[in-house]
């Protein structure tokens, strides 16, 4: 679409000191710290990052936002863009994976046995369970799948505290407002005011994958170069350090359900 090319032109004019292709990456909020560090590894300052919820980013892209790469926290929204023909499908890959962790406020742990079918999670704590909003936040959707798989959901259905994003869910647990919460392992790693009680098995939910793709009708070559960089050893090391599982290296990440 000519409209999209028009976006690039002013960018080229503005970026006098940098090479012609300045790229914008739209990424899910849970990738913030990891992706920032990865981007800092690049030799030139040619990549700009924009973080928000996967759903907001997808809608912005539909409305014509100048993203070159979309890094989602769920397949749902990547599919959404794919159906609208907005991504270069051949560049799509499930780059990262994540796991779910049950957390509790620091120094207030309790016993959790997710592998024990007789374990009653709902009875193990009182009050509400801090989660991402299962109605639309990816971490919440995966949480619900896991809880349902483990048979814990019906008892907890009316005891959820659905947060708008993982950060808020973390805060609920950090402040002791909730005696327990379920967030990504990467989220739990950020906070030093919570402790992880257990990690939920990957087979209790759809694979938590982070698909990344280049947006169609943009500078395809530059996008491919950036995507290749994300798969490089240096980038991989950063991702793993932040707690993500990386495709090709960690088996859980290489499965995808499209």
């Amino acid at each position, binding site marked *: 679409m000519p409209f999209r090319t028009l976006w690039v032109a002013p960018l080229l004019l503005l970026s006098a000191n940098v090479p012609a292709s300045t790229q914008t990456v739209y990424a899910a909020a849970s990738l913030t710290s990891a992706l920032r560090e990865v981007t800092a590894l690049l030799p030139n300052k040619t990549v700009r990052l924009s973080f928000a*919820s996967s*759903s907001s980013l997808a*809608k912005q892209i539909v409305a014509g936002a100048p993203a070159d790469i979309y890094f989602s926290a769920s397949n749902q929204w990547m599919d959404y863009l794919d159906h609208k023909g907005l991504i270069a499908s051949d560049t799509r890959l499930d780059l990262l994976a994540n796991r779910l962790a049950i957390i509790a406020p620091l120094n207030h742990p309790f016993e959790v046995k997710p592998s024990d079918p007789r374990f009653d999670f709902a009875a193990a704590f009182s009050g509400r369970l801090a989660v991402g909003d299962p109605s639309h936040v990816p971490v919440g959707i995966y949480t619900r799948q896991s809880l349902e798989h483990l048979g814990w959901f019906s008892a907890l259905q009316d005891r959820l*505290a659905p947060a*708008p994003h993982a950060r808020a869910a973390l*805060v609920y647990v950090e*402040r002791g*407002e909730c005696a327990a919460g379920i967030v990504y392992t990467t989220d739990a790693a950020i906070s030093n005011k919570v402790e992880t009680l257990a990690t939920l098995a990957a087979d209790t939910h759809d694979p938590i994958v982070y698909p990344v793709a280049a947006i169609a009708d943009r500078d395809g070559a530059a996008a491919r170069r950036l995507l290749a960089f994300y798969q490089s050893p240096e980038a991989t090391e950063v991702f793993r350090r932040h707690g993500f599982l990386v495709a090709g290296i960690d088996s859980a990440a290489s499965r995808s359900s499209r």
Partner: protein
Amino acid sequence: MIVPTEDWQVIGLSLRVAFFCVLCSLPPGVFLGWLLARREFPGKILLDGLCHLPLVLPPVVTGYLLLVLCGRRGVFGGFLESIGLQLAFDWKGAVVASAVVGFPLMLRSVRLGIEGVDPRLERVARTLGCGPMRTFFTVTLRLAAPGVLAGALLAFARSLGEFGATIIFVSNIEGQTRTIPLAIYTFLNQPDGDSAALRLVVVSVVVSLVALAGSEWASRRARRR
């Protein structure tokens, strides 16, 4: 069915939250409005600034502050627990979030209303045998009624639209804290939720117009008296 039942639940919750929000913020609003309008005291500017803080803070920040102050481990947490009041994850917390965010708007209106009352009328009432409290209710408040009413309407309307502080402080619990703005937000975040969101938007506009018309009628009556 033009308006599905789930929507009515959301609307009902929003109206209930907005109503109690006004109910709870009127007494302190009227008192502080009177204090700032009629009294000089050291630290007055500080108090005024404090009351206007929710106006300049992003609502999400206000939500976090409420969590810090009124959560279980918060400054007021112990006190709230002792009187059996649970605010986080509860519709009462939504009331508090709305009340805090809308307070500066109501306060300004009430204060202006009271400042518009000739203080000499209050003095006359005193010479005619009215004590200070009686004077306040029979003279000052009666004459400031349009301002108070306008302030209440502002608080009500602000509550109907309150999102940021609410979603952080009480989260998005269906039937408990999912007010109209939170419901619209939820729909918008689902791939096929646009039409449902639009439906709610239309309904909330109608509700707001009805509320606006009602208060306009009420304040006209107050002025005529």
